[in-house]
């Protein structure tokens, strides 16, 4: 799914500014590689701040995939046709798969999945704030595919060229699946918009609730984006938040027209001089309030993740105990 604001500061990034004591030769080699638009691989030397930025960003992204399973999972049991149920299960399962690649990519930087999950569960690590809003009708599933995954693709396509090899390679696969997700979402909405008045109203209601949240997914305006400049210099970030947001608006307006829905922004209009659509003011106070943990579903989302983890402890313990026993038996046999 979805990554937003992958430069949202959180506790794990507090020591970002720590100065590296690395020998200048290694640092020079790193800088030269970045300069030449090459890839940094796990075994390569890298500045601590680069490593920490990546761990923060990739783990936020992984957490977003996992938490993002919940709002869509909310509709699996009630999907109104077997075809849509199968598509939705497959999609939510894909998101779990993305979480898995991303945790693995972050592990190559020396942070374990356990440590990352601890960050999520304690509230120190952030995830995309879009998942802190409820999914209230079936059309939310389609709109998440169309707009939320659409916004995520805008964010993630540039990450396929990210300077860190494992992350960029994970993103290539993730983007292929996301693009499929976006198309299925849009197709589901097209069908609903050709249906009954009640179905059309569901789609409009979902768009009304999610449109502004999707624009906020690109993160704070460039002027207020704390980590953007360094991220750009390191080749972790390629295009600024505001540029991506504009690209998303420009791409989405014609799609909304084809669909027959109204985007809930009276200020949305084509600006001939700029060659772009102008759009209204995003409510950043509401965005930050949600990022800080006070959105409508933050507590439910996090508590649900924590509960699943805690309830699953005995399963993981059993798997480890069994593996140990098997190993001991194999060693005894070998002896």
């Amino acid at each position, binding site marked *: 799914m979805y990554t937003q604001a992958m430069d949202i500061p959180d506790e794990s990034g507090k020591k970002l500014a720590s100065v590296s004591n690395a020998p200048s030769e290694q640092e020079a080699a790193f800088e030269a590689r970045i300069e030449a638009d090459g890839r940094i691989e796990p075994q390569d030397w890298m500045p601590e701040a680069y490593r920490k930025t990546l761990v923060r960003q990739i783990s936020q992204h992984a957490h977003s995939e996992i938490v993002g399973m919940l709002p869509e999972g909310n509709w699996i049991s009630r999907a109104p046709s077997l075809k849509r149920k199968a598509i939705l299960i497959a999609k939510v399962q894909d998101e779990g798969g993305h979480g*898995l690649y991303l945790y693995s990519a972050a592990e190559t930087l020396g942070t374990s999945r356990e440590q990352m999950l601890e960050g999520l569960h304690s509230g120190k690590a952030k995830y995309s704030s879009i998942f802190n809003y409820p999914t209230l009708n079936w059309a939310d599933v389609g709109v998440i595919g169309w707009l939320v995954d659409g916004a995520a693709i805008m964010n993630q396509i540039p990450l396929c060229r990210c300077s860190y090899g494992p992350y960029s390679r994970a993103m290539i696969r993730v983007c292929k699946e996301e693009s499929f997700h976006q198309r299925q979402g849009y197709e589901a909405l097209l069908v609903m918009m050709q249906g009954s008045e009640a179905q059309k109203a569901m789609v409009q209601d979902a768009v009304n609730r999610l449109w502004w949240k999707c624009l906020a997914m690109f993160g704070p305006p460039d002027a207020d984006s704390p980590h953007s400049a360094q991220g750009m210099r390191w080749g972790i970030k390629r295009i600024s938040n505001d540029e991506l947001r504009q690209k998303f608006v420009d791409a989405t307006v014609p799609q909304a027209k084809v669909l027959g829905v109204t985007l809930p922004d009276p200020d949305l209009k084509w600006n001939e001089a700029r060659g772009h659509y102008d759009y209204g003011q995003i409510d950043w106070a509401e965005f930050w309030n949600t990022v800080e943990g006070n959105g409508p579903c933050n507590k439910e989302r996090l508590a649900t993740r924590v509960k699943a983890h805690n309830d699953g402890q005995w399963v993981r313990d059993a798997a480890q105990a069994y593996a140990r026993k098997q190993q001991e038996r194999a060693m005894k046999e070998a002896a």
Partner: protein
Amino acid sequence: MNAPADYLLHLADNAVVLGQRNAEWCGHGPILEEDIAMGNVSLDYIGQARLLYQLAATRLGGDATEDKLAYFRDDTQFRNYTLLELPHNGPLVGYAKADRDYATTIVRNFLYGALMVLVWDALEKSSDSDLAAIAAKSLKEARYHLHHAADWVVRFGDGTEESHQRVQAALDHLFPYTEEFWTPSAVEDAAVASGAGVDVRTLRAAWDAIVNDTLGQGTLVRPQGRGYVPEGKHGRHSEHLGYLLGEMQGLARAHPGATW
């Protein structure tokens, strides 16, 4: 000869009900890999259900569609085994709420998976060539489901004290429901007589062998039957199916005639 539509519905209802149940784990799995695996198992079941309902709809003709069969039949018309509709917890009344227990989920998938590898294997030779084609596809999936569930039954049985207790309790709870597999029904008898169905009773020894082998590896005790034989495949269900279908069918039924 073609299988009777009711026989296809029995197979389809089994698949949709267990697919619906297993999907409840989505986003709540004990570890990410299992969350993905259980989603996959569920997706396989929904896929099997779709193929079977589509075939049944073709055979029934009229305005029957896969979704009409899945969403607009009442619980007394569902012909699934009672085992498959039970919630993921120990014995509790229909309106009770309890935490999902992964041991219950795994044991059910194991007991049913062990049956379905045998059923699909036999149905590959069905005189109904459409059903035989569905069986060939489903057999591959059922083998994976059995492999996955059996591995976990052994891990739980021979894992920690807690996992052993949980999996034995799940077996004690669910095993008696498997008695329904071996009882006759007019629908199955008609399918067998047509050459399109399988007489499940002939599969019992092979099922026993799979089950006993896995329970042995897991140091688990095979429970005895309890006398009562469930009758889900006759349309007489537990208190749980009404809730499951209420949730599954509610949105579709609120918009009859709508296309999604």
